[in-house]
């Protein structure tokens, strides 16, 4: 068995002419052999079960052991007793009559995952972010999903049946060297990047632009992610603020494509200016943090914190428990739309149809609406699943965010509010819609409940491709604060996602340029010792 593994590692991979790769493999093959001898043999393969090696972000899946149950409107009860992985193994056996054993491991950053794959760790199914999927595809490391996976008529094809048409369309717009990413990737979670802020300390107006990180009024009171790509994106947002907020630009018919081009610029001049901006930011912000930002927001050490939407939801929840009310806002000029998805790796699957079936079944199981809810509830991020025929996801949104009105007993009240929503015939598809405006929202005093409620109706795009009617169908009656808080963070309205762009996978040269700029920002320049400006 040891020999078999050695052969897998040393010889079965693509014959690469690169000496480096070969040397790398020999070195790590010997390491693997050693670790193999130390850990002993694994008997799962012997017992006939398919072994599925999955690698996912840390704390990015339901691990079970809940102490409460979600009760949805239609009586569905959702509760994670076991970890979702155990549930998958059981479900797979019941459904396909085959045993599967999931070897689950985690990674902390996309780069860490990539390094693991490069040094010889073998996985079958991994969950990197958009640009890393593109990078893996570009390097020919991915296996496409089978055609039957995308067949929405299949009973167990929960992904094809349930994926949000909006996310699907974003996927279809991405391709690498002429290959569409959509054939190789199935979405898992998605979101935006924005600013968590403390409304008592900083105005929404100030927080809703990227240049908040340069704002001297908040000297040393704002934290930024310690991540090259995210900070670079923010720097571009500051650099091209005038260009992308000009009326001509915003009103142009291909606004989104143009915005995506601008916020993905990597030419030397752009990178140089971004470096200057980030150098200034470094002297103005509280820190470049990897994980401490959430806690520092809650304790009040900082007043604003650039976050991914899922982490923002978590931060807002935590702060609420401590009695602090925080808000979330996505910068008006344009923000980053990101998603993480499942891709299958060639090196792991090795054209084994059983493995591929298990991998696809894993993705489908995660995409079943009730399971998507389990994961969302557990980790706070937003699933790419909108449910398709099933309206569980919409019920879940209501479960989380609907205002405490007695809807069931007061049907006419609902109608009244819907009528109010009708009174604002906003076409959210309209490209002319001013980004950031709250046109899709209408307010209505609710006399009965005594609590002020509003209708949040801009999220139809997520559920149905035809947004005109969907907006009404999928409106949420909620409390006004939710428009700036968790609901808005988790399900941003159409007007927000209209100026959110996916950050592409840059080519090697551009990456090197940006990384060098980042090192320059972070390193002490020896010339400062000799040249006094």
């Amino acid at each position, binding site marked *: 068995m040891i020999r078999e593994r050695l052969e897998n590692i040393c010889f079965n991979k693509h014959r690469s002419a690169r000496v480096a790769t070969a*040397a790398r493999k020999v070195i790590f093959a010997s*390491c693997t052999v050693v670790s193999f001898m130390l850990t002993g043999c694994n008997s799962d393969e012997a017992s006939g079960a398919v072994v599925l090696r999955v690698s996912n972000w840390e704390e990015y899946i339901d691990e079970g052991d809940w102490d409460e149950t979600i009760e949805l409107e239609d009586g569905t009860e959702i509760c994670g007793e076991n970890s979702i992985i155990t549930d998958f193994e059981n479900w797979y056996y019941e459904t396909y009559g085959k045993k599967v054993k999931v070897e689950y491991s985690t990674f902390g950053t996309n*780069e860490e995952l990539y*390094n693991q794959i490069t040094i010889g760790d073998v996985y079958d199914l991994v969950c990197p972010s958009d640009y890393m999927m593109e990078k893996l595809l570009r390097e020919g490391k991915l296996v496409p999903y089978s055609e039957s996976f995308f067949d929405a008529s299949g009973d167990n094809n929960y992904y094809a049946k349930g994926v949000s048409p909006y996310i699907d369309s974003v996927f279809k717009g991405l391709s690498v060297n002429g290959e569409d990413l959509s054939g190789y990737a199935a979405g898992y979670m998605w979101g935006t990047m924005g600013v968590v802020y403390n409304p008592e300390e900083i105005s929404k107006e100030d927080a809703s632009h990227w240049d908040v990180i340069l704002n001297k009024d908040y000297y040393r009171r704002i934290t930024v992610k310690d991540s090259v790509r995210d900070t670079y994106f923010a720097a571009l947002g500051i650099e091209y603020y005038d260009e992308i907020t000009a009326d001509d630009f915003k009103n142009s018919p291909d606004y989104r494509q143009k915005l995506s081009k601008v916020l993905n610029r990597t030419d030397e001049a752009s990178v140089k200016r971004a470096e200057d901006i980030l150098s200034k930011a470094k002297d103005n912000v*509280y820190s470049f943090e990897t994980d401490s930002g959430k806690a520092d927001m809650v304790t009040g050490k900082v007043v604003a914190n650039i976050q991914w939407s899922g982490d923002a939801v978590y931060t807002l929840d935590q702060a609420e428990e401590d009695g602090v009310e925080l808000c979330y806002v996505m910068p008006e000029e344009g923000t980053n739309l990101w998603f993480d998805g499942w891709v299958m790796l060639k090196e792991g699957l090795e054209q084994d149809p059983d493995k591929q079936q298990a991998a696809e079944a894993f993705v489908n199981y995660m995409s079943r609406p009730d399971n998507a809810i389990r994961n969302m509830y557990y980790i706070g991020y937003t699933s790419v699943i909108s449910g398709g025929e099933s309206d569980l996801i919409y019920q879940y949104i209501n479960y989380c965010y609907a205002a405490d009105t007695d809807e069931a007993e007061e049907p006419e009240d609902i109608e009244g509010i819907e009528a109010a929503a009708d009174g604002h015939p906003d076409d959210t598809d309209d490209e002319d819609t001013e980004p950031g405006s709250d046109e899709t929202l209408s307010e209505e005093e609710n006399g009965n409940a005594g609590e002020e409620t509003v209708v949040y109706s801009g999220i139809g795009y997520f559920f149905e491709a035809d947004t005109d009617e969907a907006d009404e169908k999928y409106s949420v009656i909620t409390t006004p604060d939710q428009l700036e808080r968790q609901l808005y963070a988790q399900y941003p309205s159409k007007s927000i996602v209209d100026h959110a762009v996916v950050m592409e996978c840059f080519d090697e040269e551009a990456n090197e340029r940006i990384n060098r700029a980042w*090192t320059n920002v972070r390193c002490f320049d*020896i010339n400062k010792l000799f040249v006094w400006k």
Partner: protein
Amino acid sequence: MKNFHLDRRQLSVPYLIYLVLFVVMPLLVVLYYGFTDDDGNISFTNFIVFFTNSKTMGTLVYSLAIAVIVTVICLLLAYPVAYILAKGKYARKHSFLMIFVLPMWINFTLRITALKEILTMLEGNLAYHPFLNTVICMVYDFLPFMIMPLFNALTKLDSSIIEAGYDLGATFPQVLKSIILPLTVPGIISGITMVFLPAMTNYVVLDMVYNSTYIMGSLIGSYFSSYDWNNGSIISAILLMFIGFFAIFTERILNRGEKEEQRI
């Protein structure tokens, strides 16, 4: 079986295996990456780039500055403490020593988290003085590593030599300068080794006190996370050379000291 004798050489086998697997092999991997380019060809460009780039040299200077300051402060703080503990007339010297070394038992990230709160209270905002905070936290973190070897060296120091000095009419400063300090040089050097290099590379402390300027450790990390194994490795290799030079240098001093002792 008759021919088998368990002599001292065989006792070293377990460590030898450990050494080859976990020290020598990784070092060879680091050296391999350090002196090759992207395509696996032998190259010295990484090496040259390190010494010609103003930012990497700046990082080296910045790390050295932190390390020197931290080491000096640790030495100045630890020496009197170690002296009092070792030479004072206490019944329970070792219990007192334990109290000083005890913080080492608590994970350093925990200790620094606590220290951060204190510093925030004192300074109002941690981010105003990143360099100062880094130094404070590192001194706090590394102080026990300085006290231990100094304490050992001072306990071993024969008190009768010091008394002889006083008997011959020397004042305390003279005794300190001509007797105590020279005879504790080995302790000072091992204390410095324990503090200096970790202070150059321990970027976790910097991250925790929000110092956004890279030191050597964080620079290596940043290269690895941008898939640049070659440049990351060369920095590790260069640090390794520093350790090598330092070891040779200290050995010379110690040898000289021993020879002098023999002369006495």
